[in-house]
């Protein structure tokens, strides 16, 4: 028994060096050669970081495309989903309010046009994407506020709709809004 204890202590020390020092240092070193050098992939505008491609941020001004509802209000220091169950009455009321808000700011759409991702909170609270339909319903509002033609904004959205070989189609809201700011009248 005593022998096992001593062996355990020594093995733990040796494995700590291997698994907790050597292993992560090797990976961190290789990671330096990745896009973003292992620090996450920032998006730059005029030499300034305005966000990370993977991290959704809060958009609620009318001149921008909006992202999904977030349980943490897009505070990326932490992360959380709503954890609301499908039959929770308070939650369903919240969803209904979101539907009404969307209808208010987009008077030209019908209820059936609203995709579920625009009225439900994401798992992380930091979802950077919306569905193509989620972007489509916002086009007219954004075009009106910015004085752009609907056709030019529609084209921009189409260009920013990613349709990967595997996985769902999506629109990265931050990238879309950055491109929107650069769009000429």
């Amino acid at each position, binding site marked *: 028994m005593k022998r096992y204890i001593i062996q355990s202590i020594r093995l733990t020390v040796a494995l700590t060096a291997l698994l907790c020092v050597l292993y992560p240092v090797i990976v961190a070193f290789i990671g330096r050669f990745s896009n973003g050098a292992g*620090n996450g992939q920032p998006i730059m505008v005029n030499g300034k970081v305005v966000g990370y491609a993977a991290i959704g941020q809060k958009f609620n001004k009318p001149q921008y495309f909006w992202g999904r509802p977030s349980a943490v209000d897009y505070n990326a220091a932490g992360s959380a989903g709503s954890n609301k169950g499908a039959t929770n009455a308070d939650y369903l009321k919240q969803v209904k309010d979101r539907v009404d808000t969307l209808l208010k700011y987009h008077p030209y759409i019908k209820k059936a046009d609203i995709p579920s991702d625009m009225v439900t909170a994401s*798992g992380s609270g930091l979802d950077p994407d919306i569905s193509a339909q989620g972007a489509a319903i916002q086009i007219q509002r954004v075009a009106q506020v910015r004085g752009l033609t609907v056709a030019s904004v529609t084209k921009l959205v189409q260009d920013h709709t990613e349709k990967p070989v595997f996985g769902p189609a999506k629109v990265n809201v*931050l990238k879309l809004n950055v491109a929107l700011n650069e769009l000429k009248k």
Partner: protein
Amino acid sequence: MNSEISGVVASFLITLLIAVPLGKYLAKMFAGERVWTDFMKPLENGLFKISGIRPNEPMDWKQFLKAMLTINLLWLVYGFFVLIYQDKLPLNPDGNTGMTPDLAFNTIISFVVNCDLQHYSGESGVTYLTQHIIMMFLMFTSAATGIAAAVGLFKAFRDKTVDNIGNFWEFFVKAITRLLLPLSIVVAVILAFNGTPSSYASKDQFISLQGDTVNVSRGPAAEMIAIKHLGTNGGGWFGVNSAHPLENPTYVTNMTEIISQMIIPMAMIIAFGYFIRRRKLGWVIFGVMTIGMFMLMIPTISSELGGNPNIAKMGVTQATGAMEGKEVRIGPMATGYWSTLTTIVSTGSVNSMHDSAMPLTGVWQLLGMMINGFFGGCGVGILNYFIYLIIAVFISGLMVGRTPEFLGHKVEAREVKIAALVTLISPLLIMAGTAIAAFVFSTYGNADWAVKPSNWLNNPGFHGFSEMLYEFTSANANNGSGFEGLGDNNVFWNVSTGFVLILGRFLPIIGPVAIAGMLAKKKYIPESAGTLRTDTVTFGMMTLAVILVLNALSYFPALALGPLAEYFSMR
């Protein structure tokens, strides 16, 4: 939609393509035959030398278990203190605080037992030092413990009659140097090149496009996420685990993570068949597990794609299925696939919030963890399944009126008693735990704990009950996922699930290894016409029936009170 179907099909096929050759390799490697990873030998010899271990020393099952329990106990004690005093130790750039004793108790047990139930949030509850020397360290070593225990069981059935079931240290170290470590490097690099942070940079601050000041948590996450999946651990770097867009930035990383959590549990089954030179038995078990997996997966995916009927009533389009708690880049189909696998293989990492899944999905997730033997965790999956096998052998023996035998060894009263006890311990822990929690919730709602019992539940009614049931089920299965709405960081949950975790881990390891050790010592009886063969499809179906009947009898009442009641209330 088609790209989502093809994504899931591709994930499954790639898993098979990797797992099958990996299983054959594991059988050879643990048998000590020549394999291409022999270049690791000097490293292993170095580790043995430093530790004063003679890897060739034979162990009987008692010595084997003693060695295993000793090193696990050491980690428990040492880790407990490191977590309490983490604020005074270096490598804490975000200035996070030390853990309360009850949280440290829960957390250290949770990581030692390969569960990774997290009652803290990764961004604020631990430091970079503890993420490394406790969390990541234990992710490797707890997985290797499970694998080593399983190989001990393999060894017991390889030869006709043996005392020696191999050397625990040898299997344990080899599981790390020749399996977990090399694969982790590959997976971590894939993740790092797809956008998961891998550097030691601390939180970043920037001004968003709209003008808000935003802080972003980062850190060397890729390293931990790789072993979190390969070792079926499941503890996330970030609070929301693999739903976090840095922990799981793209569909490709999602596929990588789902494949890596499945390959070792699958490979271990194939390794079992090859190692004991009864390949057919290995494939029959593999087949039963695969059927079980699809029985849980297909209804899960279909209930998630169907969307929330209550939201459908509002007139909103759910073309992409139920989206509450899910991420757009992953979509409901890959989320459903993941949630099935993460519950059957005891990873417990999540890429969506299970609390917000549809009620029926909750049933399948809970059942996956209750059964806990469809592939199951690293190594322990086959140990759990072995218990079902012994019960199936016993019941079929009674049915045909013969002394039950398994692989040429008589299964007698002592072995069956152990198997029966191990089968009974899970329902006891899960249901007694949930019952006590429900009692405390309803009777002592104002107890002065960090989270008052009356505030535990994030959802009312049946779903609230499911939150408590899920927590104990996950703890017992050493799964680690949760209905995260539960206010679980307080003395009641930390202590009660701590005990469930430790019993739910070690009894189902000790039991099977002991049975295997006892059987291995018995005289070998050659197969005859009267032998009940265990490597036939008929026996496979018999085992599946035993699994389904046992679990249905044990858990149906609890499921009926929670997710099933919620489902029917929606109609």
